[in-house]
């Protein structure tokens, strides 16, 4: 343990002399304050905060990932190249302690930098509202939508119901001998698509309700919750806008026939463009005590002629503060860096610096678009799909994901909570399973390697 620490310290001493380390450091020290000053987003305080947090976290994450890869791939390689390893190996230190020492050095340095730059981003973010001298209402909006941690709840999907309805329709078609001349699989697929779109669509003069469970906004009179959604309109409305009448609250109260409602049901009208993300605020007391909230949308035929198809529909409510959430976001980033350090060290036990770096970068970039590739592979044709399924797919499953819910930036930009549960799960898979596996492989290889062997 103590001699691992000596190795780690030496690895850091070596890393800080690498040009890339200086470049990353200087670049970030210059860019972060500049970004806080220059990035204005859509001009509002919220937009400014969102664009700064998004770009700064992405930049720090990206550059530190590159630095981690460079440092971890370089350290052992350089020891082999200048043969310093020959001397270290003869000392009373086990091979695994050398590998672990290198790993701790590479990871430690980058975590230290991450901590430093995170503090800087946090400080700058906190300073932006004061520096920008924004009006009161914008500050209030930033408070509820940015300096918060909101839980995102999707409506209860009724996939079973969709499947049930599809089966019913197939049954009816069969009875009427109207089944098209296609394979059963294709028919089912087409009908499912249709049914799913039908589930999301609201025709003119029709209304739709979405039920949300487990909505528990804080019990204070100022608490708010948010309805966030995105839709398309078909056909395109002439002014590109859809007029909608909304109701939010516990709709079960309509059916009781009581005059006095226990929780209020709010109504509002909005006219909004298609294909953009919108959200509106509703007082927190709209949620029932058992956590149920229903959102209703009425496609008013007086103003619209289009069918409205909702691609996204969510309810958000605050569950925690910005600071803790920011901390968790940084931890998620740390998980990524630790993994990359293990990857680089493990690869450099048997690959040269350029090859190990290349491979690490491949894993890193694949991780950044992992979810996207996986999705597109699923959509591939049968033959091609088979090929991919047995090659790249395994690779993609084996490496961690850095995109989608594993991307730290989105949480801050939209003020969404990154739950401890999710963070723990990500850390468990990435660190305990993937990282340990990598280190064990690296140590195994390194322990068997003939250190002074020269390959020319």
């Amino acid at each position, binding site marked *: 343990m*103590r001699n691992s620490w000596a190795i780690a310290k030496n690895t850091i*001493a*070596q890393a800080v002399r690498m040009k890339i380390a200086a470049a990353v450091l200087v670049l970030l020290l210059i860019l972060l304050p500049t970004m806080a000053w220059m990035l204005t987003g859509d001009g509002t305080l919220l937009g400014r905060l969102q664009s700064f947090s998004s770009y700064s976290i992405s930049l720090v994450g990206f550059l530190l990932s590159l630095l981690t890869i460079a440092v971890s791939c370089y350290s052992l390689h350089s020891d082999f190249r200048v043969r310093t390893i*020959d001397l270290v190996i003869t*000392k009373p230190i086990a091979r695994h302690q050398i590998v672990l020492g290198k790993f701790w050095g590479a990871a430690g340095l980058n975590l230290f930098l991450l901590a430093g730059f995170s503090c800087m981003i946090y400080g700058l973010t906190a300073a932006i509202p004061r520096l920008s001298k924004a009006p009161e209402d914008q500050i209030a909006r930033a408070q509820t939508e940015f300096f918060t941690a909101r839980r995102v709840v999707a409506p209860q999907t009724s996939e079973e119901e969709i499947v049930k309805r599809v089966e019913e329709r197939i049954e009816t078609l069969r009875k009427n001998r109207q089944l098209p001349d296609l394979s059963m699989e294709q028919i089912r697929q087409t009908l499912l698509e249709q049914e799913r779109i039908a589930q999301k669509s609201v025709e003119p003069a029709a209304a739709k309700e979405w039920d949300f469970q487990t909505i528990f906004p804080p019990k204070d009179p100022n608490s708010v919750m948010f309805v966030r959604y995105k839709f398309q309109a078909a056909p395109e409305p002439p002014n590109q806008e859809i007029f909608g009448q909304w109701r939010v609250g516990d709709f079960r109260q309509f059916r009781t026939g009581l005059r006095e409602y226990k929780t209020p049901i709010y109504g509002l009208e909005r006219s909004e463009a298609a294909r953009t993300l919108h959200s509106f605020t509703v007082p927190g007391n709209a949620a029932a005590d058992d956590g149920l909230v229903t959102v209703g949308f009425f496609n008013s035929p007086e103003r619209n002629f289009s069918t409205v198809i909702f691609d996204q529909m969510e309810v958000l409510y605050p569950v925690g503060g910005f600071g803790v959430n920011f901390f968790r976001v940084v931890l998620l980033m740390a998980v990524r860096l630790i993994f990359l350090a293990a990857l680089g060290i493990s690869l450099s036990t048997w690959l040269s610096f350029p090859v190990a770096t290349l491979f690490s970068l491949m894993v890193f970039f694949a991780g950044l678009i992992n979810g996207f590739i996986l999705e597109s592979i699923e959509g591939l044709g049968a033959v091609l799909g088979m090929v991919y399924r047995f090659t790249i797919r395994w690779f993609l499953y084996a490496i961690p994901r850095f995109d989608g819910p594993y991307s730290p930036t989105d949480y801050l930009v939209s003020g969404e909570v990154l739950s401890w549960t999710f963070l723990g799960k990500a850390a468990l898979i990435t660190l305990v399973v993937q990282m340990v596996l990598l280190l064990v492989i690296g140590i195994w290889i390194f322990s068997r390697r003939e*250190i*002074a062997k020269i390959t020319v």
Partner: protein
Amino acid sequence: MDSSGSSYAIETINLTKIFPDWWGRPKVKAVVDLNLKVRYNEIYGFLGPNGSGKTTTIKMLLNLLHPTKGHAFVLGGRSTDPAIAARIGYLPEESYLYRYLTARETLDFYGRIFGLPAPVRKSRIDTLLEMVGLAGLGSRRIGTYSKGMMRRIGLAQALINDPDLLILDEPTSGMDPIGTRQIKDLLLELARRGKTILLCSHLLADVEDVCDRIGIMYGGRMQVEGPVRELLQHRDELQILTGPLTPEAREEIKSVIRREGSWCKMTTPVDKLETFFVNIITKAQASQPTSGAKPGTGIQGFLAAPPASPSKAVLEQLVAKKPQPAAEAGPAEAAETEPTQSRPAPKKDLLEQLTGKPAEPTVSPTEAPTEKPSEPPAVPKLSVRQDVLQKLLGGRKGPDGSTEQTRRPESEEPRNAE
């Protein structure tokens, strides 16, 4: 220090290393069936021309290379065992040191790996830097060091753990003559303290000066092995050293020898270049600063002079300087002759700090060491006047009639003493 089952500090059994080429076919037979045996507390000179397999053998001893066949044991075990590795000091062929670390950081780094506590590290680093003559340069990056300075710090690194077994691969390559001399003195002193040393060198004079036994490798095989003196001694020749003589006296001596039916040759002794160089530098050192390694501080400072104990002072008065024979003369004596005034002040405590053991007085008036005879670790070598010493020591004699007071009694005696 022989804590293990094996009676050898280094033992190889049919050790073989064959380097394959890229296709895996055997290409270079670097070491073939080597059975090397180095006893505890011995300085073993491992010789051989370039490419004869010395370094390869050492690397196999240290598990840097895996033997194709055979086994290598050090200190009765494998060097992969941390408990054994902790007792080894290794100076590689080239300076495999981190160039971006300072000398002090380098020693600290290795000290940490050995798990030495901070205060021990600190005091040992100071001592070692002093010893290898880099005391003022401890905060300079190793990358900026000259080759010899790097060698010196490499040696310091090998000593940081106060090793029982020291493996030195060409320690004197690139070293100035004074450094070379210091290393030789150091090796003798370490051996006196019970360490075992495997010394690989091309400077035969150095090997001859310090080694008890040598082995000569060629083509990966051991060609000859044995005690240095035995291998080098001309048993059928005799050398006599005298003070100035008149031509008549010389003629008389020659005629006596001719009467005996033998041959004879008379020359005046000449200083070796090494001795000459050491003298010049010692003088210059007094008047001029240097940005390089400082000769004369460490090892020499400590080892050159006997401790300033009363008994020693007496002894100093009793010894007489021995003149230097000519080039044809025995090499051992020649290398070690030097005027007395070139000796710097005694610094006995340096090595003591390092090893944590007090240095025994070289010659004690009450007790003559017999088990491990020690010679005064003095440069120059002083020949002790046997008659006075015998009185002092109470006339204790060795089997050959001479007083056992040196590590190698034969080096003190004229050749062919019999």
